[in-house]
């Protein structure tokens, strides 16, 4: 009495599709590095698929754009220290996150995803399917491959100086400021850059 369907031509092609690699794109603008890393690692390993099995090679490609605008919580840019120890004398290097981000705007995204993939042998292969771009530009062949977009892990907040004066007037007054109160977020402050100690005897440029 058993009913067994014969695999049709359509079913066979569907199965090829089932194991095909998908390309996802995600915008890292103002996204927390750890949350984003967790989400991307999930897709790189293929854990979002119902067919997932640790021994099945079902991971997807993930394209991350706007890596330069990735965010960290509170003072984490200063207090998150990445340790690069090469196990040789004088090779120890503990570099804070902001310094790495200055050197390479994509490196923080890479490191957080690599950490989220877990300490296993597969992660070196899985990380190869991660494509990081500092801004919204990407090569044409990557754009053509992208077939789905992932939702961000956080809401992108609007900066104070991005509100127009009309929007500001419409917003309900919660606090009454005193006369002549200086609002420090009227204009975004320019990044003063890294402080460098002037060397005595060096000429001014």
């Amino acid at each position: 009495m058993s009913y067994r369907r014969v695999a049709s031509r359509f079913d066979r092609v569907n199965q090829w599709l089932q194991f095909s690699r998908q390309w996802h794109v995600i915008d890292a603008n103002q996204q927390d590095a750890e949350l984003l890393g967790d989400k991307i690692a999930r897709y790189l390993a293929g854990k979002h698929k119902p067919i997932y099995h640790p021994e099945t090679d079902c991971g997807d490609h993930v394209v991350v754009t706007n890596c330069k605008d990735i965010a960290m919580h509170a003072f984490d840019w200063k207090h998150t220290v990445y340790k690069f120890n090469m196990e040789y004398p004088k090779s120890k290097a503990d570099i804070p996150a902001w310094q790495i981000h200055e050197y390479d705007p994509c490196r923080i995204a890479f490191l957080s995803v690599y950490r989220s993939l877990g300490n296993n042998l597969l992660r070196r292969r899985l990380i190869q399917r991660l494509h990081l771009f500092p801004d919204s530009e990407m090569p044409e062949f990557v754009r053509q491959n992208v077939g789905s977009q992932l939702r961000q892990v956080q809401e992108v907040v609007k900066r104070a100086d991005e509100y127009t004066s009309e929007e500001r007037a419409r917003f309900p007054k919660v606090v009454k400021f005193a006369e002549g109160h200086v609002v420090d977020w009227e204009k975004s402050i320019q990044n003063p850059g890294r402080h460098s100690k002037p060397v005595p005897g060096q000429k001014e440029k």
Partner: protein
Amino acid sequence: MPSVPRVDRLKPIYTAAKALNFGWRFSDFLKIPAYNGISRYTNQLHRITVRFCKQSESSVGVRNFIENQIVEIGRKNPSVVIYAQPVRNSNPSIRAEYGNGRTLQINAKNMTETEVSKDFHLLFSRSGEPVVKLESRQSALCPSVQGQWTPITWLPTAMNTESLPAKQFSEHKSTATSATEYILQNQPK
């Protein structure tokens, strides 16, 4: 040895290969022998033999079981042959033979009537397949009605016409209300 060899004694020889497999196969997939129970159910237990001693203390439970319950069980299950075999000075045992050719035996030494009854029912309800750790929790005789999953099964169809990345697919969705939204919804007086 009797002049005419008994068939019962020959059976372990041709089921030897199956018996070998019985011990070390620890995990298997869930399956039903011969699609049993799809339209009608056939008990996989074919015959069951209760061996006991008529006088020894260790078969008291088995003897009580035979006296009180076995006739009723036999009446309820006409498809199963039940033997009660008295063997002098032996340890009592319950031996069950199944449709797949396997034999299971339970040593009923010093068992009470209740324990014997429990084991008897266990042997009745088994299929003869070894008890193993299941590799998957479910099995299906028919393929899924839904069809197999593909990467595009749950993909929003709105993504087909847009060129990615697009802003409307990127926005984070949340049920939580932010402070700004709260103030805008409940304006202070």
